[in-house]
């Protein structure tokens, strides 16, 4: 249940998988994303509502074949340059995209978590997303005749999320902004959770989401594993790092330099995850 991060990635994530590293600004599983880069995984379909800099890094490192998303940017800063370079120039590899709105993606996870093949919402109507994304269609209410929108369930092979704490049995506790993480875990076949710490006992916290151990495949300790995003109650968002990413990522050369020194040459998060 509790495994080192590198082992967790090796066991749960395989080339060609659909992988959802979720986290809505808060608790982004960055250490896990870097371990995926280090292990050289390829042809992944990356799903996430808000791909930000860790997906930019994974795309730039050549892990991704496709991105399923609803908003891809550097929050509060601007665009993602590696994402742009992949979409606009096919570097380092062409990137297929499947694009939704937040409401659509959230409901796709909800349908997946609920074990039903689609979700119904008021959304997308009149937008050009419908023409570009095959997975958006209309559905008629059988009672009122009203036309609404349907999107298919999103059921990744593996969900990866970061949380504040787990106990030794693998029950996971997260709080603060909890985003769509519960739904992503429940919608996926497998789930890896990185945590700030493994504790003996999970004392209840207001606003917590608890993921029972039986829906978690593996837990890896990765203190600081959400940096430069934040872990409510542990450390704050490193806003400077987000600003700095803009410069690092703008050119392929500076990005590759960063990749060599900060990720490939640095297995620290993985080792930390293993040392409990």
């Amino acid at each position: 249940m509790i495994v080192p991060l590198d082992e967790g990635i090796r066991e749960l994530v395989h080339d060609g998988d659909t992988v959802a590293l979720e986290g809505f600004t808060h608790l982004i599983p960055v250490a896990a994303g870097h371990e995926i880069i280090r292990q050289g995984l390829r042809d992944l379909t990356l799903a996430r509502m808000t791909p930000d800099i860790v997906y930019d890094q994974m795309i730039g490192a050549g892990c991704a074949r496709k991105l399923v998303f609803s908003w891809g940017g550097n929050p509060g800063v601007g665009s993602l340059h590696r994402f742009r370079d992949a979409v606009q120039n096919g570097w380092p590899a062409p990137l297929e995209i499947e694009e939704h709105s937040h409401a659509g993606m959230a409901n796709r996870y909800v349908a997946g978590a609920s074990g039903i093949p689609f979700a119904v919402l008021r959304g997308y109507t009149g937008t050009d997303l419908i023409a570009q994304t095959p997975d958006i269609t209309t559905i008629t209410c059988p009672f009122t005749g009203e036309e609404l929108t349907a999107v298919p369930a999103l059921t990744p092979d593996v969900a990866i999320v970061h949380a504040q704490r787990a106990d030794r049995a693998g029950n996971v506790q997260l709080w603060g902004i909890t985003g769509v993480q519960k739904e992503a875990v429940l919608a996926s076949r497998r789930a890896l959770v990185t945590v700030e710490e493994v504790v003996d006992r999970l004392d209840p916290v207001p606003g917590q989401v608890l993921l029972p151990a039986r829906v978690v495949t593996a837990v890896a300790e990765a203190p600081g594993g959400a940096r430069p995003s934040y872990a409510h109650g542990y450390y704050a968002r490193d806003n400077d790092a987000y600003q700095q990413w803009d410069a690092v990522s703008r050119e392929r050369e500076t990005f590759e330099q960063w990749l060599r020194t900060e990720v490939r040459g640095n297995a620290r998060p993985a080792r930390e995850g293993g040392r409990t």
Partner: protein
Amino acid sequence: MTTTPRYTADEMMTVTAARFLTTEMACFVGIGLPSTAANLARRTHAPNLWMIYESGTLGAKPDTLPLSIGDGILAETADTVVSVPEIFNYWLQPGRIDIGFLGAAQIDRYANINTTVIGDYSDPKVRLPGAGGAPEIAASCREVIVIVRQNSRTFVESVDFVTSVGHGKGAGQREQLGLTGLGPTRVITDLGVLEPEPRTRELTLASVHPGVAVDDVRATTGWELQVAPDLAVTAEPDEAELSVLRSLTGS
């Protein structure tokens, strides 16, 4: 000798946007200019403005401007934090939100908004972040206010991609599409305020900011801009507004 202007064009824009928010309103706040304007309103004339960020924070009362829609300060100060599916399904979709604040990379004469791509979708000149919550904010909030700097790259005859529907192809189209909210009722720029003409829904210049000529606005608009018969001049920011705004932005 030139005098230093008392305020910048961005400050004029932000203060103008803030003034359209009234206390007790529920406001769906995007990051950047919308967040600055909403936080300014809450600190001045609208102390009970109920700010919602799409990260799930209902009634956030941040004491500093958040950099992202999911900063910790939003969760810490909120009345309650809900999941992302809940914010969209239980709060936005049923029309519980009075005002949605949106930005735009392109906007057309019917206030349709593009935040997806410049150029062709499959071979883009510039790939932008995409939709996020905007399509449903534009569809379901009772009203939408757009805040965007005015220039001819942004104010275009026709957007390259409709990410969020404003007034579609004109009058009656929102109703035809079954969109429940009123759509964009105001577009606030650094030059003035545009509003849909009630009959045609075409964006029309309703007011210019002090010192701005109508021709300046026309020159930065990609369609032949109509001007309201009762064109106004926007009221200047007062000292209190500027002082609160500057304490927020640190400028």
